[in-house]
C-alpha cells in the first residue's frame, strides 16, 4: 500500500485535486477569483510535492512503472500547468465554467502522467485517450466563438482517426509478437515485415500527437480556434509528455528496429523543421504563428531523438523544460493582449514597446529563447538537441538543422521588429497586468534567463538517466 502511494504520488495528487474541484462545483459557493487563487495554490503545492520521495518501481504487473527520471518529467509538466494557471488568469476568471476547465485540464494531465509511466500497450492506449479527449473539450471552451467549436471538431475527428490507426497498430503488434507488455516486447522484436508494418502505424499515432509533418494539418486550425490557455497546454504540456514517452518507446521497446526508425526520424525531422518554418514565415495571426513555430521545434526534438538514448533523453527533457518557459512566455503575452484588446495579429503589435515595455520584453525574451539565441536558455536547449543528434555522426542533419535555425530567426525577428521598430499611429494602449499574470511572466523570464546558465540542472537530468 505504501508502495502504491509513493510510486503513484503524482497521479494521486492530481486525482485529489480533480475531486476537490468536483466538490467545489457541486457546492457552488465560490467566486471565480477565489477559486482560481485556490487552484493556483493547489497546483503550486502539487508541483512542489512532486519533487520529494521519488523512487523507482512498478505496479500492477508492470503496467505502471516509475523512476526518478519519470518523476522529473512529471514535475516538468506540473510546473508548466502551474504556469498556465497563472498566465491565463485574466481569461480564466471570466469563463463561467472555471472548475470544469481545470477538471478537464487535470484529467488530460493525469492521462499524460499515466502515458509517461505506461509499461504496457493497453494502458498506453488508455492513457493516450485520456490525454486527448478532455483537450478537445477544452478547445471548445470559447463557447461564443465559432472557430473554437470548429477547432474542437477538427481535433476530435483527427484524434479519433489517429487512435484508430494506433489501435490497428497495437493489434498488429500483438498479432506479430503475442504480447502487449513493453518488457516482453523488447525481446520479441525481430524486424519481420509484419512488425515493421505494425510499428509504422504505432509511429504515426505519435506523429499525430507531436504534429510531425505530414500529420500536422490539424495543428494550426486547432491552435487558432482554441482559447489561448488550451492552445498553450496543447503545444507545451501535451507535446512534452508525448515526446518523453516517444523516446522511451523507440529505444526501450522498438530498439530492435533502430535501422528503420532512424531514417524515418531523420527524414521526418527535416520535413518537420522545413514545413514548420516555411509556413510560420507567412503567418499573421500570432497563435497560428506560434503553432507553426512549435511544429518546427518538434523537428529539432526529432533530431535529438535520432542520436542515442542517453543524450536524446537528457537533451529533450532539458529542452522541454526550457520550451515551457519560452513558449508560455510568448503565449502569456499574446493571451493578455488578446483578452484586453481582442488583437491577435502581428501587425497589431507594432509599436508595442512604446506602450507596454514589460510585455514587450517578456515576449521578446520568449521569442529569442525559441529562436535559440544566447544568453537565453533556448540557446543551450537547442545546442544540446543538436549535439545529441550529432552523436551518430550524421552531420548533414545538423547542417540542415542549423540552417533551419536561421530561417526561424527570420520570423521570430519579424515579431521583434514589429514590437520594437515599426511605427504605429494607434498602438495597443498600456495594459494593466494583474499580479498573478505578472508573477507567471516573471517566473518564465527568470526561467529563460537562468535555466541555461544553471549547468547543474542539466547534469542532474543526466544523473537521473544513468
Amino acid at each position: 500500500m505504501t508502495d502504491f502511494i509513493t510510486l503513484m504520488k503524482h497521479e494521486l495528487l492530481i486525482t485529489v485535486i480533480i475531486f476537490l474541484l468536483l466538490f467545489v462545483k457541486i457546492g457552488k459557493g465560490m467566486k471565480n477569483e477565489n477559486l482560481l487563487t485556490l487552484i493556483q495554490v493547489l497546483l503550486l503545492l502539487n508541483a512542489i510535492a512532486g519533487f520529494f520521495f521519488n523512487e523507482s518501481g512498478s505496479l500492477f504487473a508492470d503496467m505502471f512503472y516509475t523512476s526518478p527520471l519519470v518523476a522529473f518529467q512529471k514535475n516538468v509538466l506540473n510546473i508548466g500547468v502551474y504556469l498556465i494557471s497563472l498566465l491565463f488568469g485574466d481569461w480564466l476568471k471570466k469563463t463561467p465554467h472555471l472548475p470544469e476547465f481545470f477538471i478537464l485540464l487535470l484529467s488530460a494531465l493525469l492521462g499524460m502522467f499515466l502515458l509517461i509511466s505506461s509499461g504496457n500497450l493497453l494502458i498506453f492506449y488508455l492513457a493516450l485517450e485520456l490525454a486527448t479527449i478532455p483537450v478537445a473539450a477544452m478547445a471548445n471552451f470559447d463557447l461564443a466563438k465559432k472557430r473554437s467549436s470548429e477547432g474542437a471538431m477538427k481535433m476530435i475527428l483527427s484524434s479519433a482517426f489517429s487512435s484508430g490507426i494506433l489501435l490497428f497498430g497495437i493489434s498488429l503488434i500483438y498479432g506479430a509478437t503475442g504480447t502487449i507488455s513493453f518488457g516482453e516486447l523488447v525481446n520479441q522484436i525481430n524486424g519481420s515485415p509484419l512488425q515493421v508494418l505494425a510499428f509504422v502505424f504505432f509511429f504515426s499515432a505519435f506523429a499525430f500527437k507531436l504534429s510531425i509533418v505530414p500529420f500536422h494539418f490539424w495543428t494550426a486550425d486547432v491552435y487558432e480556434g482554441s482559447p489561448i490557455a488550451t492552445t498553450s497546454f496543447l503545444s507545451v504540456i501535451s507535446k512534452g509528455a508525448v515526446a518523453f514517452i516517444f523516446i522511451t518507446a523507440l529505444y526501450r521497446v522498438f530498439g530492435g528496429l533502430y535501422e528503420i526508425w532512424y531514417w524515418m526520424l531523420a527524414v521526418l525531422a527535416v520535413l518537420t523543421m522545413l514545413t514548420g518554418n516555411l509556413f510560420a514565415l507567412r503567418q499573421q495571426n500570432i497563435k497560428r504563428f506560434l503553432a507553426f513555430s512549435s511544429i518546427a521545434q518538434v523537428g529539432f526534438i526529432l533530431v535529438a531523438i535520432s542520436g542515442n538514448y542517453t543524450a536524446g533523453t537528457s537533451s529533450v527533457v532539458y529542452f522541454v523544460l526550457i520550451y515551457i518557459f519560452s513558449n508560455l512566455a510568448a503565449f502569456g503575452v499574446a493571451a493578455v493582449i488578446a483578452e484586453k484588446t481582442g488583437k491577435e495579429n502581428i501587425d497589431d503589435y507594432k509599436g508595442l514597446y512604446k506602450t507596454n515595455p514589460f510585455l514587450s520584453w517578456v515576449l521578446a525574451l520568449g521569442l529569442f529563447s525559441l529562436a535559440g539565441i544566447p544568453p537565453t536558455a533556448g540557446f543551450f536547449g537547442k545546442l544540446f538537441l543538436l549535439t545529441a543528434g550529432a552523436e551518430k555522426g550524421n552531420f548533414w542533419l545538423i547542417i540542415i538543422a542549423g540552417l533551419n535555425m536561421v530561417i526561424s530567426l527570420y520570423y521570430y525577428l519579424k515579431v521583434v521588429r514589429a514590437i520594437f521598430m515599426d511605427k504605429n499611429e494607434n498602438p495597443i494602449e498600456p495594459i494593466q497586468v494583474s499580479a498573478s499574470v505578472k508573477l507567471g511572466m516573471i517566473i518564465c523570464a527568470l526561467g529563460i534567463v537562468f535555466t541555461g546558465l544553471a549547468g547543474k540542472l542539466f547534469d542532474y537530468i543526466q544523473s537521473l538517466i544513468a
Partner: protein
Amino acid sequence: MNLLLLIATPLLTALAVLFCRNQEQVKWTALVGALAQLVLSVVLLLLYNQERAAGNTMQMLFEESYALFNNPPINFHFGVDGLSVAMILLTSFVLVAGILVSWNIEKMTKEFYFLLILLALGAYGFFISLDLFILFFFLEVSVIPKYLLIGIWGSGRKEYSANKLALMLMGGSALILVGILLLYFNAGHSFDITELSQVTLGNRLQHIIFPLLFLGFGVFTALFPLHTWVPDGHSSAPTAGSMFLAGISMKLGGYGCLRVATYLLPEGAKQYADIIIVLSAIAILYGAFATMMQKDLKYINAYSSVSHVGFSLLGIGMLTQTAINGAMMQMVSHGVMTALFFAVIGMIYDRTHTRQVNEMGGLMKGMPFAMTVFFIVGLCSLGLPGLSGFVAEMTVFMGSWQNADTFHRVATIAACMSIVVTAVYILRAIGKVAMGPVVNQDHIAAGDVKWNEKFAAIILLAGILAIGIAPQWLNKLLSPTAEIIMNRINGH
C-alpha cells in the same frame, strides 16, 4: 588578474544602466562603467607585460576555469595571450568612444546604452574564452544587440539592413556550430582550445572542418563574397553601432579565423590557403574600387572596411609568421581607425544632417577640429607612415613577399595596388568635404564639436598614433601568438 572582472564589469554596468532613473544618470553610469573597463584593460596589459617580463612562458596567462556543464564538458575557461589582450584593449577604447559620441541620443537612451554595453560584454567574453562552446556563446550574444541597435536607432533602410545582418551572421554561426561539433566528436569529446591544440586530426577531417569554421567566421569578418551585410549594416547603424560593428565585430571573425580555424586545423589552413588568398585579394581590390563609386560617407568607410579587413585575411592566407603578425596588427589598427572614421562621420552628420559628399564642402571653416581628425584618419586609412595603417599593412606585405612563388607574388602586388585606389577615394572625399568652396552656409554655422566628441576622438587618435609611431609594443604583444600559430602550421 581575474579575467572574470572583464565580464562582471560590463554586466554590472549594463544592469546599473537599467536601474537608472533619468537620461543623465544613464549616460554617466555608462561612461563610468566604460572607463572602468578601459582602466581594467590597461591594467591587464601592464600585468600581462609584467608576467612576460618575469619570464612566464605559458601560452595563456591568467587562466581560470569554472565548470558549467559536466557532460558535454563545457567550462568557462578563460585565459589571454597577446592577441586577446590587444583585442580587449581595442574593445574598451571603442566602447568609451562609442558612449561619448552617442552622448546626445534622445530616443530610448537607457536601452541604447544597455545594448551597447551588452555588445562589448560579448566581445570581451569572446576574446578571453578558451572553450569553443563558450566562445560561440559570446559570439552569438552580440548578434541581437547589433540587430536592435541598427533596427531601432539606425537610419535609411534600417530594418532591411538589420535583418540582413542578423540572418547572415546567424548563417555563419550555423556553419561554425557544425564545425565545432565535428571537432568535438572527432577530437576526443573536448571543447577546450588548449586540449584541442594537442590533438592532430587526420587530414581528411581537417579538410572538411576547416572550411566550415573559416567560412563561418568569415561571414563575421566580411570574407568575399559573404561581405554583403557590411555596407548595409554599417551605413544604417547609428554612429556608435557602426563603430562597434566595424571596429570590434568584424574582428571577432578575424580572431576566430586565426585562433579557431587556423590554429586548431593547420592542415586545413594549408589546403585552403590559396583560396583564402584569392578571395581576400578580390575583397581588397573590389572593396577599394567599390568605394570609389560611393557618394555617402558611411558607405565609403563601409566598403573601405571590406577592403582593409581583406588585408587581415590575406595575411592569414599567406601562412608566414610575419604575415600573420601583420594580419593581427591590421585587426587592431583597423579597429581603432575605422571606429574613429565612423565617429567623425557621425560628428559631421550631426551638424550637416547629410552624409552625401556632394552636399558638403569647406567644412574646415566651420569645424576645424573634426576636419583635422578626419584628415588624420583618412591619411591613416591610405597608409601614411607614422600612423597605424602603414605599420600593419606594411607588415602584411612584407610577410606575403616571403612566399617566393609567382602566385603569392601576384596576389601581393594586386593587393598593394589597392593602396593607390585608397589614396584616390580618401583624398577625393577629404578634399571635397573639408576643403573647397563652402556648399551650405548652415553647415558652417553649426559650429565645431563638443567636449564629449573631442574626448572620443582624442582617445582613438592616441591609439592610432601609439601604434603608428611606436609599433614595437604591439609587435611584442602579438608576435608570440604568431609564432605559436606558425609552429602549429609547420608541425612543430
